[in-house]
């Protein structure tokens, strides 16, 4: 099932899809947020934004607007 990181529930995981490539900002790619990698949504900030994710060994916080650009397939 194709969704975006923003649609994950806390604790759920997904795999970043290849088609997401064009929408992922370069800096996130450089930080290890690559197609084929697993993302886990660790936590949402109290107002549902930003999102605290773990991807490729990094713990990052990104805003929802960015997360909703990144397509994943849920596992």
């Amino acid at each position, binding site marked *: 099932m194709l969704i975006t990181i923003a649609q994950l529930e806390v604790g759920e995981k997904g795999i970043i899809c290849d088609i997401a*490539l*064009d929408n*992922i*900002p*370069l*800096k*996130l*790619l*450089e*930080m*290890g947020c*690559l*197609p084929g990698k697993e993302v886990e949504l*660790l*936590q949402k*900030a*109290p*107002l*549902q*934004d*930003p999102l*605290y994710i773990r991807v*490729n*060994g*990094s*713990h*990052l*916080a*990104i*805003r929802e*607007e*960015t997360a909703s650009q990144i397509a994943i397939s849920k596992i």
Partner: protein
Amino acid sequence: MANSKNITIALVGNPNTGKTSLFNQLTGLKQKVGNYPGITVDKKQGVCQLSPELKATLVDLPGTYSINPTSLDENIVYETLVNDKNPDYPDVVVVVAEVENLKRNLFLFTQIKDLGIPTVLAINMADQMQRKGIKIDIPVLETALKTKVILVSARKKIGIDALKEILLNHQTLNTESVADVSERIHGQFFKRIQEALPHFSTYKSWLLITQQKACDFILPKEQKKIDFFKSKATKINKFQHKEAIYRYQVINEILEKTYSVNREEGTDLRAKLDRILTHKIFGYVIFAFILIVIFQSIFAWASIPMEWIDTSFARLADFSKAQLPTGKFTDLIIEGVIPGIGGIVIFVPQIAILFMFVAILEETGYMSRVVFLMDKIMRRYGMSGKSVIPLVSGTACAIPAIMSARNIESWRERLITILVVPFTTCSARIPVYAILIALIIPDKHYFGIFNLQGLTLLALYFLGFAAAISSAFLLHKILKIKNTSFFVIELPNYKIPSIKNISITVVEKTKAFVFGAGKIILAISIVLWFLASYGGKDFKNAAEIVHSQKTSVDLTDAELKQQIATYQLEHSYIGILGKSIEPAIRPLGYDWKIGIALLSSFAAREVFVGTLATIYSVADEGENTATIKERMRNEVNPITGGKRFNFASGMSLLLFYAFAMQCMGTLAIVKRETNSWKWPLLQLIGMTGLAYIFALIAFQFLK
């Protein structure tokens, strides 16, 4: 050493990997470190003697994830490494990586290696390896990365000498690329680049093409060619993405052979702490509680040493008066220099406590959680979660706070942050607040713990914060700048703060404050003293004039002397100056003496108390040297006959200092950071105007 050689070594790496700690170990210098990405936002230099013949200039750079800059601090790294005419262009680069995030650290490493600069890899925090179950096969890694790799621990001082040894032999380092992107992405395209710009390494040309900003060291002829390639923007974007993926592929292959980790022991604690510290409710409660503890301690703990410093300086003045021969020079020391210095030393306890708390919050890794918690809220006001750090450290001093805004990616959010930070209650306001609060607010306790004076101070902090937030909101509504970048922050592991790091930070920052502000205060108090001790004809003939105007005959000698001194002050140069602005400030409840203090504190707020001290001690001919507070308490308003510093005028002054932009250092730094006079001027006029209005309203209502 006459024939000693000198090389430049740059420390580069991801944020928070311990570059500054390593820099301090190598150079013996004391730079601030902290467990928050973005502590170093500027270049720092130090010297390290590698051998009797070889001296190295070390450059500590801000942390970056990639050589492609997305914020101002990262741009410093890019410019240092791409421009070989830059004075800091390194002979060797030490990429400082960290054992846990080696993969991501290597990304930057492969980029730098492609530039053809001799590069070594220092893997820091080796002391954590055992606990985290990490194993690294160094010899295999060295072969794969085509350079020297060394495990170090800046905290436990492991591997420092071995690193020096490698740097000493930097000429033998291999400069081949590890992940040559040109072939893998688009051979044809990169070949054309190579042919067009034969003097640059291909990767350097590629970087120049991918950056939006032009570099000033490029010749126009070369720039034209670069611009030609830039025009193929969509292709470039694709290639950049491909590059990132390719690099990670190479790195993954290398690490599979060399790196193993026995998963997830430490992460348990991290998850638990995160659940509490970023909790919907508890997260904010804890943050608020921490802030309250900080402010309460600034007032409660600091008051004891402050009292002591205050009386010590009064005693010192008495002592000097007794010991030194009478004369103009002694007067300068007792009335100008000693109160001036006393006026600044007295804040050392409060400032040190504040710096200590900020350092602890940064060292533990808590600050990044605050960013996470606050981002959404701050965005409503046109700022970023990362603006919280400038706003909190602004309570120590606006200057480093404004610089720490450099890691905010979006120019709009950064600009708003810079513009509103000076509203936060910096430590230079504490002396003014402290003395005024002590004069006008009773020293009462509620429920045994809350002190009315402390609560007033807290209210002033909130006021500063509210002013910052509301002006940010206003700017958010009116500024027409588009947001182009996006937000990302790494949440580091929690760490037990190192007492050594914290004490270094506290000592260094306090020292910088005392000497920085001390110089200004000393200079101003000397100038003030001169202006207060000399004047025109009326000043010189004060004695006769007072005698001739004498109203009653039975004045004692001392009273007469006092009257003469007061008359002299009024007709001194400073008196004339103060009187000329009195009409403008009388509606706020101030007299010309306070006016002088306002004028002089345009250089820096903390000068206020020192100025009043100087002025009152010039006017005071009594035998004993009273403390500043006593002198202020004894000032009377000749019109009403009541106290000069009563509730109305005191509140008006408090509000004036809460809002007014009175710090030349801040204005200078805003000019530098925004690269224009427009923004600092806006701050100066806007903030001071606001201060005037609030002070006016307060005084007119309360009097």
